């Protein structure tokens, strides 16, 4: 229980302390300093204000018994029993975290006619797999799926619950976390475990180039969501292990205000998440037509184009081609960024790229700090020159292919 109080008498120039707060929450009215609702409790005023002027008053809180919560649970994301690969990545991370505190790893599998599919999870080193296999759970609906998770958590009391940051995970996890009135940290990019079972969660924050280290210090279970392709899946075990336990929930508890009428696969579009080569473009692009230049390069390298959020918002690029925290996470072998400054929102989505080339005319751009190879220059000059090189260099697969076709025709 904390609040910040101001000792007015220790402040000589009230006008000067206003700028100590990056959120403009310190107000000076009628000769009195006060803190407004804009305060984010970042405590920078305590740290950087005049000595002793801002004081953080903390009342001791009643500590919960953390030993009463054991195990790291992973929610199994799936479509009709086909397990989403983010699940294996989370199981790998869960095993790593659990080993530090000697906790078991659980998987929670919720759906209908899925019990046979649970076998596959045994190849990833889970200690126990809890399956809720009931007709009411045939397709994803937030309330019944949340009811199953609530039942599992009440029965097993896991210390940590990891959920994939997909549209399903981001609809389900908050519902369950709110039910238990506990903490949920979205889109973590790093996780670690403290000996006292507190989960260290790191994620980009404040909408900018800042990382936040977050803990849920006095609530259990502690929830975190993680995007697909942030962690690596462990190798598949030859010898399956772990037991499968089928759970049952009273259908009364699976009622929902939602009735699913139909479900269909989305038309298959080129998927940047699985692309090996990506040419990404940002605000350095002057107009929509110039995308042709980027397309030409992508095509020549056998890759796909992608972009940052501003171009999506401008409607120039399909939203499914957005790299970043609010877009997709990609892991290509080669990523060329053109005219992208490299905000944390963007770089959070490209962390797994093997080789990153950045072209930007601002030598101070943050992208140069994360790229393996940075080219300070104008994309409008470098890309055409590169395309020319590519044209005169070794023939591309396309040209090779065309040649074969031609020779076949001639032959």
């Amino acid at each position, binding site marked *: *229980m904390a*609040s910040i109080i101001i000792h007015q008498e220790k402040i000589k120039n009230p006008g000067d302390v206003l700028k100590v707060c990056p959120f*403009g929450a310190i107000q000076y009215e009628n000769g009195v300093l006060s*803190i*407004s*609702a804009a*305060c984010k*409790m*970042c405590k*920078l005023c305590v*740290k950087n204000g005049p000595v002793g002027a801002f004081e953080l008053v903390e009342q001791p809180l009643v500590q919960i018994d953390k030993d009463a919560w054991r195990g790291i649970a992973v929610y199994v994301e799936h*479509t009709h029993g086909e397990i989403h690969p983010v699940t294996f990545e989370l199981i790998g991370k869960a095993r790593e975290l659990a080993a530090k505190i000697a906790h078991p790893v659980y998987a929670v599998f919720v759906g209908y006619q899925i019990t046979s599919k649970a076998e596959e999870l045994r190849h990833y080193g889970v200690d126990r797999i809890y399956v809720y296999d009931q007709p009411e759970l045939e397709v994803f*609906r*937030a309330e019944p799926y*949340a009811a199953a998770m609530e039942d599992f958590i009440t029965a097993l009391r896991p210390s940590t619950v990891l959920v994939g940051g997909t*549209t*399903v995970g*981001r*609809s389900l*996890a*908050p519902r369950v*976390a*709110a039910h238990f*009135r*506990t*903490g*949920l*940290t*979205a*889109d973590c990019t790093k996780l670690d475990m403290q000996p006292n079972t507190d989960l260290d969660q790191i994620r*980009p*924050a*404040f909408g*900018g*180039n*800042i*990382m936040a*280290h977050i803990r849920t210090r*006095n609530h259990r279970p502690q929830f975190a969501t993680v995007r697909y392709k942030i962690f690596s899946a462990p190798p598949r075990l030859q010898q399956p292990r772990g037991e499968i336990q089928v759970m049952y929930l009273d259908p009364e508890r699976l009622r929902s205000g*939602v009735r699913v*009428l139909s*479900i269909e*696969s*989305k038309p298959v579009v080129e998927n940047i998440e699985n692309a090996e080569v990506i040419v990404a473009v940002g605000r350095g692009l002057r107009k929509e037509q110039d995308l042709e230049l980027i397309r030409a390069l992508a095509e020549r*390298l056998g890759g796909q184009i992608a972009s940052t959020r501003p171009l999506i918002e401008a409607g120039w690029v399909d*939203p499914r081609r957005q790299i970043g925290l609010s877009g997709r996470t990609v892991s290509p072998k080669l990523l060329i960024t053109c005219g992208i400054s490299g905000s944390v929102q963007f770089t959070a989505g490209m962390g797994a790229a093997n080789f990153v*080339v950045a072209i930007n005319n601002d*030598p101070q751009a943050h992208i*140069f*700090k*994360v*790229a393996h*190879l*940075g*080219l300070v*220059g104008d994309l409008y*000059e*470098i890309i055409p020159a*590169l395309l020319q090189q590519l044209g005169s260099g070794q023939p*591309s697969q396309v040209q090779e292919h065309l040649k074969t076709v031609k020779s076949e025709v001639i032959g």
Partner: protein
Amino acid sequence: MNIIVCIKQVPGTSDVKIDEKTGSLIRDGMDAKMNPYDLYALETALQIGQETEAHVTVLSMGPPQVKEIIQEAFLMGDVDGVILTDRRLAGADCLATSYAISQCIQKIGLPDLIICGKQTTDGDTAQVGAEIAEFLHIPHITNVLKIEEMNANGMIVEADLPGMLQRSEIRFPALITVEKDIYQPRLPSFTRKKRLAGQPMQVFSVQDLADHDENHYGLNGSPTQVMRIFPPETDTTSEVWEGSSQDLAEKLFCALQERKFI
């Protein structure tokens, strides 16, 4: 029919940096705007309002300045405005924010439909909508792409799932979060501006809520705590080249060739 749209004021820029010496945040000015995704939520409510003569209320929680985005909403359509502002709400994480908003919605009166944007551009968590629904014990659907039909009891919507499109019927009262492009948001009308000058908005504080125990709000009511903020790590193995565009293109070509990309 009653609709509440939850909107948030976010920084106008994401150019936030950390002063490495002091650890303070550096923001270029304090520009603020309505979360862009909330414009779609508001437009959805206004479209429904036109069809069904629903009564639309916009609700925002934050510092007193949030009245700016309520005024922006006034310029877009006939809506009522409600602000929840209180120093005791400071430092709220997703859970404490959702709880405060759910309490405020109960104060206003539970509507048939609550609409939120799919996420904010500052927090980017996309969690608050689903948490509000849980606190209010109502069904929710996130990532709604299209509203197909509606009547007094519920609506049929199409929502985005990983690899799938799901068509569902949802019974009121309910909460939905809408995707960008569900409708094209209208521009603020400046002819409305004169007419609406000084349109009042309701202002609530924690004291007005049914649960006014301050331990349930703000930092005190937040299970998650920010231990520390720091600049992102950067890979030191990077190399930066400068020179003429022709040279750079040639060197890049060689680098790509060396790594067998071409």
